[in-house]
């Protein structure tokens, strides 16, 4: 599972080429012609703002002889020109021209058939742009489903949406992609031990004994998961910056009015989130990240800092600094995690070791049935319920030939209107 090349090839085909993958935050592409390049698993893609304000995405590969088209991380452009033979494409992906065009015409080439290969579906949820390589995949809203109820805690605190600050920081970790996704989907348990040193350095004391918190949860839906308590600022506190805590306490009443008391206590609480298959973030710390697979034993980690658009600039700057100090390659927390991620993978080099059954049973029997919360809800955030849901979804997709073979385990309980809190559109 963490080592086999055959399984990895299957994951690329059955999971990554069919799932909604995070592409960009709309704030990264404010103007027409703004673009960035990113990955969908190992496929490099260009994401670009169109003149009509929509966002399109294309393989970052020239459809002539397959050269990489754009070599930058981001920029603004009117066209994409290939380095090899100079074919030129519009930001809408259309082939616009090339030297010697008359020869191609004479060869019977139909320019309309040789534009950039589009990502089959692109859709947004409150500022987050996702893409899906499979034209038959269910729509993004169905994919996220009731998990949006929780996503709104991060994305829609005040109807003004969010934005990314700073640029993308990228690093390589020699681990299987599922290990960090699992870590963020539900594993607060590790923080107690793994992050003791960082917590002492940043907070002057150990990590809170979250497993004693009576009011904490695992929730999941369609393989997405969120573990959290309701302490409002537990995550934020690790940044060691009281202005950020003040800011969160300051906006909490307004959030409560918008999202309700319960969710308002999640805005910076001790919590972590993964959206299936490979997007993760931390409310409060505001690190936002994708774990791009690079073979069974390697990932490329892309991280950003997400903030409320309405926050004062000074608060945004503090968050940018905060993610750097905690969850970045030089971050004091991330340094602890990296070793765990790598060596939870590398042990699988052993033939006998990788036959070993691991334990993932924490929180069996903690399912809450008498709750109004959407999705599958479990008592106590120290739990492995989300892990189990993630691997269930993973197995469902991996073994499904087509979408109709994918079991519909989770059913939406909320109506679409539940995610539109007022008339103001969330601007992103």
């Amino acid at each position: 599972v963490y080592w086999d090349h055959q399984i990895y090839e299957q994951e690329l085909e059955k999971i990554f080429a069919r799932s909604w993958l995070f592409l960009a935050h709309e704030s990264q592409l404010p103007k027409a012609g703004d673009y960035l390049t990113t990955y969908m698993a190992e496929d490099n893609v260009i994401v670009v703002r169109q003149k009509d304000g929509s966002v399109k995405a294309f393989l970052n590969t020239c459809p002539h002889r397959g050269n990489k088209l754009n070599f930058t991380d981001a920029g603004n452009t009117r066209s994409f020109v290939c380095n090899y033979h100079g074919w030129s494409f519009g930001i809408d992906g259309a082939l616009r021209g090339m030297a010697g065009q008359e020869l191609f015409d004479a060869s019977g080439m139909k320019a309309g058939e040789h534009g950039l290969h589009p990502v089959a579906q692109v859709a947004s949820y409150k500022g987050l742009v996702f893409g899906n390589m499979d034209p038959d995949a269910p729509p993004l809203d169905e994919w996220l489903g009731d998990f949006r109820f929780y996503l709104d805690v991060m994305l829609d605190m005040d109807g003004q949406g969010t934005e990314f600050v700073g640029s993308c920081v990228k690093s390589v970790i020699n681990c299987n992609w599922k290990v960090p996704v699992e870590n963020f989907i539900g594993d607060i348990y590790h923080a107690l031990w793994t992050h003791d040193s960082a917590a002492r350095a940043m907070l002057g004391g150990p990590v809170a004994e979250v497993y004693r918190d009576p009011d904490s949860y695992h929730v999941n839906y369609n393989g997405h998961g969120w573990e959290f308590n309701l302490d409002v600022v537990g995550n934020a506190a690790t940044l060691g910056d009281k202005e950020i805590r003040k800011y969160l306490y300051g906006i909490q009443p307004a959030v409560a009015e918008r999202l309700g008391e319960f969710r308002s206590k999640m805005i910076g609480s001790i919590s972590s989130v993964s959206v299936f298959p490979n997007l993760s973030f931390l409310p409060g710390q505001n690190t936002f990240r994708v774990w791009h697979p690079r073979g069974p034993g390697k990932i490329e980690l892309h991280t950003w800092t997400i903030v409320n658009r309405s926050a004062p600039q000074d608060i945004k700057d503090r968050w940018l600094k905060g993610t750097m100090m905690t969850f970045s390659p030089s971050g004091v927390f991330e340094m602890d995690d990296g070793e765990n991620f790598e060596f939870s993978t590398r042990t699988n080099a052993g033939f006998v070791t990788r036959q070993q059954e691991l334990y993932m049973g924490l929180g069996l029997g903690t399912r809450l049935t008498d709750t109004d919360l959407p999705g599958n809800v479990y008592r106590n955030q120290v739990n492995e319920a989300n892990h189990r849901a993630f691997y269930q979804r993973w197995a469902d997709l991996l073994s499904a030939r087509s979408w109709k073979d994918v079991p519909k385990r989770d059913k939406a309980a909320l109506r679409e209107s539940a995610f539109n809190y007022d008339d103001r559109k969330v601007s992103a």
Partner: protein
Amino acid sequence: MNVNVKGEFAPAAEQHVDRDTANRIEQFLFREARLLDSEAWEAWLALMTPDIHYWMPAIENRRRADRIGAYGPGRGAYFDDTYLDLQRRVARFMQPSAWAEDPPTRHVHVISNVEACRTEVEGEYLAHSVFVNYRSRGEADNDLLLGRREDILRETEDGLRVARRKIVITQSLLMSKNLNTFF
């Protein structure tokens, strides 16, 4: 290494310091490196001024025509640290519960190409240098980074101190899982 940002490292009209000072600066930087190699974190921290700005930006691939260049303030960074931030990093290294640092990482800092110039401030020098930072952990983790530094060094009662440091590496995608080191 300027990579299109106003040619920051490029030599211009520069006034080199006298050779005694140049020599002191070089020896200071060598000694600093040795402190890091021997994990003398607190002694190392003592070489920073209280108003230190210790900055190591993340590097982006941008077209030459893109005015913002490969890095800049307010964008991503590995370090953008005040003294307090450095203190916290040192504190973390020194926790007995820093499991990821026990057994210790083994560092070598190669420092070379030291050039020192006068600045407009009396008692402050601009020092250029390049570095090779090599780390080994456990059995087979070996990480190599090269880059350039631009320091402002200040004369104090206790000798030279680092008042500002800019560190620019060549990698944009960091080929290491972390930066459990200083530069």
